[in-house]
């Protein structure tokens, strides 16, 4: 796929920002777009390097836009960079630079790997009218809960999560409170994207993701989910990507 690495002066970062753009061959413009969010401590190339997501996207006529988010925590950090504002800035900037990218809801999809899935669901809840589909792989969707685990010593994450999110109480009722904002969206009657969450059967994130699946079920919100064999790695996620993309593009509306 034709590949563009974009460096630009980011207002939100107060310095240089970076994202990658991959355009499909043999597809008509404006292109459907998959916004791909990498995992913690990665960069935009991570998911490209370790999975076949570009091939899956191209087979479906989709461009892929992948921002490099500092530390990959997708939040305006308590101590650190404005990682969430940066990703929203890329959502605005990329289609202005690349006029071939569609910004229509029916052409716009989100995919997040691990922590990128938190960013994915966070964006999907803030802008449900902007995206037709959103999926996460082994993702801490409910970071308020995950921070609670961390505070009680039941999570393997390090101090950097406190630097980023502060605490479970600080993060509650913010734009990052995905479950809280899901409830608000339901109450407001906002149309939600198709959503999917997949994880591995020996994945350390499986308990958090099973819990999130349960919450969605209780609320009556369809969350397509698959459990693959394996742990928290691309060997587990890659075989599920095609099926999930097909669901996001063609699955039943909730």
């Amino acid at each position, binding site marked *: *796929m*034709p*590949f*563009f*690495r*974009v*460096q*630009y*002066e980011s207002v939100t970062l107060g310095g240089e920002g970076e994202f990658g753009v991959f*355009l499909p061959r043999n597809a008509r*413009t404006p292109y459907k777009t998959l916004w791909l969010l990498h995992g913690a401590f990665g960069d935009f190339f991570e998911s490209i390097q370790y999975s076949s997501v570009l091939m899956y996207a191209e087979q479906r006529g989709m461009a892929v836009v992948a921002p490099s988010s500092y530390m990959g925590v997708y939040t305006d950090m308590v101590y650190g960079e404005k990682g969430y504002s940066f990703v929203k800035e890329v959502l605005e*900037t990329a289609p*202005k*630079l*690349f*006029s*071939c990218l569609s910004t229509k809801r029916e052409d716009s999809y989100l995919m997040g790997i691990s922590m990128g899935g938190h960013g994915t669901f966070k964006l999907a809840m803030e802008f449900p009218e902007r995206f037709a589909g959103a999926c996460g792989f082994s993702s801490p969707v409910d970071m308020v809960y995950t921070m609670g685990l961390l505070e009680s010593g039941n999570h393997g994450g390090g101090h950097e999560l406190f630097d980023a999110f502060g605490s479970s109480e600080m993060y509650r009722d913010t734009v990052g409170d995905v479950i809280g904002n899901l409830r608000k969206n339901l109450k407001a009657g906002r149309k939600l994207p198709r959503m999917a969450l997949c994880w591995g059967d020996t994945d350390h994130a499986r308990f958090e993701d099973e819990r999130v699946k349960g919450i969605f079920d209780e609320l009556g919100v369809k969350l397509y989910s698959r459990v693959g064999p394996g742990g928290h790695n691309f060997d587990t996620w890659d075989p599920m990507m095609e099926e999930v993309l097909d669901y996001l593009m063609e699955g039943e509306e909730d």
Partner: protein
Amino acid sequence: MAVIHFRGNLPPLNNTTRFTMVTPDILPEDGRKWRALWLLGDDGRFSDDMLRRIDAEALSVRINAAVIMPEGLHSDYENMVRGLPWYDYVTTGLPEYIRSIFPVSDRREDNFVFGYGMGGLGAFRIAMRDPRFALAYGCCGADFDVFADDESHSGPDHVHRMQTIYGDDYRSEEILRNSDPLMLAENAADVPRMLISGGSSAAKIAGVLSEKSAEITYIPSSGENDLFHALYAFERIADQW
């Protein structure tokens, strides 16, 4: 402002290639498109060579245009007999692709071509063959004597290079008519606005073109700062930024 590095397979090359692009500070409003400066680099250089040689970001701001820097490897930006069709790529394939991806204008008055070294030769030939491609053309440091049968153009490396690009019979009348800078200048019917910078051969060609057009500017070679002098002068004579 953005610096974009491209890597991919584009027609008519049908071969992996690179280009580097600097976009202006201001994103275009709905329906508006950027002007474009097509900046052709020297022999054997990657596409970011000109980005490093000049401050292309500052240039993009000054002229309020996207600066697009393709690579041309060792092609003279020609459709090579033994190689790839670089001329068609630079004048057709690449512009069509860029305009399908980015908000870059295809109007003649919004397009400018400047080349350095081998790129100067490429820019000159585009001006002669496709004068409607751009409003103004700048050629700096080009070897206008590339077909000459003299000592500096007879070494085995030069002969091999010429045979690769133009064919074994590269001094044939047909090849010279199509590619020799002086013959192109003498036969040109439609001469666009041009800046030519260089030594005596450049002066001779500028003289031929000046007899046909009042819009030819010649700058004598000034040594190692030729590129900067020529580029600043080109900014002034283009004057449509």
